């Protein structure tokens, strides 16, 4: 078991990375700031499973909340609207 890097309430930024393989982090959220809502669990890494490997070591998965207005330019909806996405730890960077 590896230790968790983030706790609920922590501010994070999604890495602005564009690797060529199979990834589960949506394009539209890369580079956006959000907040850790909860720790979901440890899972075999889908980026490895996609190529027939065992996905070990398991990766920590977090549920991350984003303000819609931080994700979409010119967002017209209510300011309190949020979007929740499950994101693996190696895609997240701390914001102080």
């Amino acid at each position, binding site marked *: 078991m590896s230790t968790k890097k983030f706790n609920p309430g922590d501010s994070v930024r999604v890495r602005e990375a564009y690797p060529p393989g*199979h990834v589960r982090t949506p394009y*539209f959220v890369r580079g956006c700031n959000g907040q850790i809502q909860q720790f979901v669990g440890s899972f075999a890494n*889908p980026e490895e499973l*996609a*190529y*027939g490997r065992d996905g070990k070591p398991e990766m920590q998965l977090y549920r991350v909340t984003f303000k819609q207005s931080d994700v*979409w330019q010119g967002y017209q909806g209510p300011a309190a609207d949020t979007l929740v996405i499950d994101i693996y730890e190696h895609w997240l960077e701390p914001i102080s």
Partner: protein
Amino acid sequence: MTLRRHHDMGGLDAGPVEDSEHDYAMWEKRVDAIVKVLSTPERKLLSTDELRRGIEELGPGVYDELNYYERWISSATNILLEKGVVSVDELGRKMAEIEARWTADRENLASETRS
């Protein structure tokens, strides 16, 4: 230059959603069954992530051209070839055999209808 991969289209304009009910064709149900059977814990010949990766690798043209289950069977086929579960020759011969049987069946059916 876009860094977005073609399949990763969340947030793009996609037009209206077709909300009518529709049943699946028999071949689509078969594709679903084949993929499920390949993925069982005893076999582990194909994982969800591999299937997704295979679909993402079809490329923009093919991705748009194929429907949902055509993408599934194309991806599953490529991955089984990659892993050596089936060979190109074996698959090609089987496909030709089924196509010949299918054509013959249709011709027989047509001549029976005429007589």
